């Protein structure tokens, strides 16, 4: 029982990091119906920028994290302007292929010697690991930091989307582009803003991930990106609370299948979930099913 609680805490840590990435997928899909495959690589860039700023440029940690979020926000907006906006009214598949291309570009471009280099880099811990033990349940300070940071970011996002004007504009644009335009909303600007927001969250996810699992390399975004995408689909792609729920579930599935079924099958099980969701309830747990009425 105690051991199960420890495993659930492990899954919580992983699920929270997946949540940050899944939000980016779901927001972008909600607003322009595009699965941004390059999102996992924005996560990787965030981890690298934070690493380079602490190790090479010797900036303090509390400067490095907002800096990496800023850099990734700019990166996200740039990707949108160059790779997706020209294809906005073309066939959906064109933008999808473009997204895959951007993803590969960032991965292999990042692995060039004068960018990040192809080697694994070890991330120095910004603080030492402290472990607490309550009656057999072990909690580390890293888990707490991840929990607190992600909860703050998620709460902030929820507030932004539901209680501010710009959040209202985002929701309007995801409903219907033309109607939003008729209401005086600058659709292009809102889309850019959504990309910036999602990318900044992915960057935060990258920093937290590299703190918990301190090895980074230019291809580190592939697997977490795919799992976060599965989480977003599971929760209902386009739906923000759905992404959070899906990510928490995916985190648990990932860890519990490694612990209780087989550590070799954990990835297979995670992606089987993707297939099952699409077969049984494609709109996800919290998504709206049924045809759209015109």
């Amino acid at each position, binding site marked *: 029982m105690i051991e199960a609680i*420890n495993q659930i805490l492990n899954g919580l840590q992983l699920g929270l990091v997946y949540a940050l990435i899944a939000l980016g997928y779901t927001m972008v899909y909600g607003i322009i119906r595009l699965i941004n495959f390059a999102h996992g690589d924005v996560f990787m860039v965030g981890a690298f920028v934070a690493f380079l700023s602490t190790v090479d440029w010797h900036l303090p940690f509390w400067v490095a994290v907002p800096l990496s979020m800023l850099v990734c926000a700019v990166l996200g907006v740039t990707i949108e302007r160059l790779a997706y906006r020209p294809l906005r009214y073309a066939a959906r598949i064109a933008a999808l292929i473009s997204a895959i291309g951007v993803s590969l570009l960032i991965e292999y471009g990042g692995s060039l010697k004068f960018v990040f280099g192809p080697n694994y880099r070890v991330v120095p811990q910004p603080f030492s690991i402290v472990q607490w*033990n309550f009656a057999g349940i072990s909690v580390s300070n*890293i888990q707490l930091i991840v929990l607190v940071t992600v909860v703050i970011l998620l709460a902030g996002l929820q507030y932004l989307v539901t209680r501010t004007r710009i959040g209202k504009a985002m929701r309007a644009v995801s409903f219907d582009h033309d109607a939003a335009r008729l209401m005086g909303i600058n659709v292009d600007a809102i889309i850019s803003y959504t990309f910036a927001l999602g990318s900044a969250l992915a960057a935060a996810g990258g920093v937290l991930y590299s703190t918990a699992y301190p090895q980074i390399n230019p291809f580190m975004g592939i697997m977490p990106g795919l799992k976060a995408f599965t989480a977003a689909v599971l929760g209902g792609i386009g739906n923000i609370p759905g992404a959070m729920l899906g990510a928490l579930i995916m985190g648990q599935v990932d860890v519990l299948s490694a*612990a209780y079924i087989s550590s070799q099958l954990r990835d297979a099980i995670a992606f089987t979930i993707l297939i099952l969701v699409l077969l049984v309830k494609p709109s996800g747990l919290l998504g709206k099913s049924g045809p759209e009425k015109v």
Partner: protein
Amino acid sequence: MRIPRIVAVVAIAVLLPAVVLSGCAGAKDKTTLRVGLITPLTGDVKTFGESTKNGFLLAMEQAGVTLDKGGKIGNVPVKLFIQDDRNDVTEGVNVATKLINENKVQAIIGSVTSKVTIPITKVTNDAKVIQITSTATNPKVTVEDGKRKPYAFRACFIDPFQGTVGAKFALDNLHAKTAAILYDQSNDYTIGLSNYFKDAFEKGGGKVLKMAAYATNDTDFSAVLTDIAKLKPDILYLPDYYQKVSLIGKQARARGIKAIFMGGDGWDSSELDFKVMDGGYFTNHYSPDDPRPIVQDFIKAYKAKYNAVPDALATLAYDATNMLISAVKQTQSNDVEKLREALSTMTFHAVSGDIKNDADGNPIKAAAILQIKDGKQVFVASVNP
């Protein structure tokens, strides 16, 4: 911004021939021995690759051959080619194919890890190119499905020996009774070592409490480590490469695992996390504390050229290269069959120990046990076969 179609067409028209032409090989001549080196200069085991390259170049230089200008061993002109396999199986096979088809090599030294070397041996054996690996220890390099691959050789001992040595050390010297093993499910090296360790440990009366696998790209081991922490084994056997082992070791200590870490020659790197792995033991091919003159002379030469103490990777690469050089001196030819014959029958005095191949082409050599203590590798014992 609409890019005119003509620009795209011109760009493709320019890039395509450039890609094609870059593959053209240089002049060919019949008597030159062309030697390729395949090693992971970048990627997750880059220190292995760098050391291997250093050992290779030092041996070649001592024989009078340099990378830029080539040279002659006896009467045989020699040319060298170096390729990076990034410790990736696909890349390794690609560069091997490139060396064989474009650079027309007759011999390849490489690669470093078993997982990349084993697929390359298929390519070299089909093309009848000699391959000597410096450090790939899995038996499948020279013998697969019961059949000896005639052109594959190695300079190191094999994992059945290495795993057994590790298990015996754990039982006899560390008085361990229980162990847990964590290995990479898609890496023949870790699979082999784990199995041999487990067999020897259990035969010696120990108990393996858990043997779990992970995927190569996994970074989160919390689930399986929490499991292992509950079982409280005396030894945690981590037979993977240094960067993976450092990651697992860190997470293991964070989960409260107090077991002694043990591993194999994959730990031998200056980039191993010495702090996390402190107190751990690993089996290796040689120790710089070995007093034999051949070892100390090599260390002196290596230090003079590279300003560093050679690790086992560099030493074995030096040995593997010298095996080839010795075969060339003996046969005075670049003929693959003659070199193969010479390699199969030679007894070679290597820095890492005398190499005499058994029927499977595997050297019978001693192993060293090293401990990670206070930020360095400390020699503990030498174990003979």
